[in-house]
C-alpha cells in the first residue's frame, strides 16, 4: 500500500517551520573578524619593514607564512574549529582558512598513514581552492597581459 504524500502541501507546511538563518548577522561578524585578521597581517608587515628593513614584498611573503603557522598551530591545538564555528567565514576566507583546511584534513587522516592517509587527503578541501586559484590566476594574468602588455 503506497500513500502518495502531497509534495506541494508538504512544502507549504514545512515553510512554517524553517530554521532561522541570520545572514546579516553572520555577514557582519565575518566582515569584522576578517578585517581584524587583515589588520593583524598589515601589522606584521609594518613591524617587519620597520625592524628588519626588508622590502614590502618580502615582508608580505613572511607575513603569509606567519599567518599560516599561527592558524595551523591553533588547528593542531584544537581550538581553531571552535573559533570557526563562532566567527564563520571571517576566519575561513583569509589565508588562515586555507591553512586550517589542510591541517584539519592532515590531522583527521594521519591514522591511515602518510601515503593513503595524509598524502591522499590533505588537499581534500584545499584542492578546489588551488585548482581554481591557478586557473583564475592564469585568466587574470592573460587579461592583464593583453590589456596592459606588461608582465
Amino acid at each position: 500500500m503506497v500513500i502518495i504524500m502531497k509534495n506541494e502541501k508538504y512544502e507549504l507546511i514545512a515553510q512554517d517551520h524553517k530554521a532561522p538563518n541570520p545572514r546579516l548577522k553572520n555577514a557582519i561578524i565575518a566582515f569584522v573578524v576578517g578585517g581584524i585578521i587583515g589588520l593583524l597581517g598589515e601589522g606584521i608587515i609594518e613591524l617587519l619593514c620597520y625592524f628588519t628593513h626588508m622590502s614590502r614584498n618580502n615582508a608580505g611573503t613572511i607575513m603569509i607564512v606567519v599567518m599560516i603557522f599561527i592558524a595551523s598551530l591553533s588547528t593542531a591545538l584544537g581550538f581553531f574549529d571552535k573559533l570557526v564555528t563562532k566567527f564563520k567565514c571571517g576566519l575561513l576566507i583569509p589565508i588562515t582558512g586555507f591553512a586550517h583546511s589542510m591541517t584539519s584534513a592532515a590531522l583527521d587522516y594521519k591514522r591511515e598513514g602518510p601515503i593513503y592517509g595524509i598524502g591522499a587527503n590533505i588537499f581534500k578541501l584545499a584542492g578546489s581552492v588551488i585548482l581554481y586559484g591557478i586557473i583564475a590566476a592564469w585568466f587574470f594574468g592573460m587579461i592583464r597581459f593583453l590589456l596592459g602588455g606588461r608582465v
Partner: protein
Amino acid sequence: MTFTYDNVYVKDTATIAGPYEKKGPLKKYFDKTFDDLYFDENSWEKAEIKTVKESLKLLHKKVGLKRKEVDIILGGDLLNQITATTYGSYNFSKCFLGLYTACATSTEAMILGSCLIDSKKVKNAIVTVSSHNMAAEKQFRNPTEYGAPKPKSATFTSTGSASMLLTKEKTDIKVESSTIGQIIDLGQNDPNDMGKVMAPAAIDTIKRHLKDLNRTADYYDLIVTGDLGLYGKEIVKDYMLEEYNIDLSKNYNDCGIMLYDLKEQEECLAGGSGPVCSALVSFGYIYHQMKKKKLKKVLIVATGALFSPTMTYQKENIYSIANAISLEVV
C-alpha cells in the same frame, strides 16, 4: 507492512554514551558514559568499535548469558561497510546479520529480531546500533577539526552504542507490533536539513501503522520519532493534523530533542541524529520508564535519511525511511 507478535519480549538493554549525551537531560538512564570522544582509543573509528564492544559486554553481563548462548546479533551503524558493528560484534554471538537503513537501523534490527523469534527460528537476538559524532563527521562531511559552520536546521550525530536483548522468555515488556517503512522521495536534497528530509517517512509510517492496526494516536502513551530535530518534529505534527486529522500534540516527541538540552547545548543545533540517537532514548530512557510502568504503550518510529554524499553531489534527492515498533508493558 505491519506485523503483530505474540511471544517476543525485551529482556534487557545496555547503553553507552559519549560526552555530549552525558551533558543532556537523560544522563542517568545510561549505563556508562565517557568524557572523551576517543574512548581511550587512537582513532574515531576505533572509538566507535569500542562503544559497541562495551555495550555488548555489558548486556551479556546483565543478562548472564555466555557468548555462545546468544543466537544472533543484528545491527548496523553509519560507517562505510558498517565497520563499527562488524568489528565490535566479533565473537559475541553464534551468528550475525549486518543491517543498514541509516538512523532507522535500530528499529529495523528490532523488527527482524522479533520476526526471527516469533517464527521460532531463534531463541534470542541482540539488537545493537552505534554512531560516533566525529567518525560520522569525517565520513559524511568535513575533517573533524575543520568545524565548518552549519545552519540551525542541521542535526548533530550522537555518540555511543545501545544494545537490547530480545527473547522468547516472558518478561515485563513485550514487542507488540511493528511497521516496516517504505523508501520515500519527496524531492528533498538539503543535507543540512535532515528533519525536513525524514519527516515525510515518519508521517507515512505512523499513518500506515495506525491504519493497519485500526488505532488512533492516543492508543499510545508516547510516540517518538528518531531524529527529526526541532523543525522536523513540528512539520510532522502539523502535517498529520492538517492532512490526516491525526492529533499528535499530546503524546508525541522526538528522540533527537529529548537526548540533549538544546537551550544549553547550542552545538547540538536542531537535535541529535544517528542510529544511536533513537536507541539511546528508547533503550535507555523509554525502557526504564516502561520498567517502572510510567509508560505502558510506546511507539518508536526511528527515521533514517538514506543519504550518500556522492549522490547528493550528483544532484540526486535524499531518500528517507522510517520503521516503527510498538512496545507494551505486559
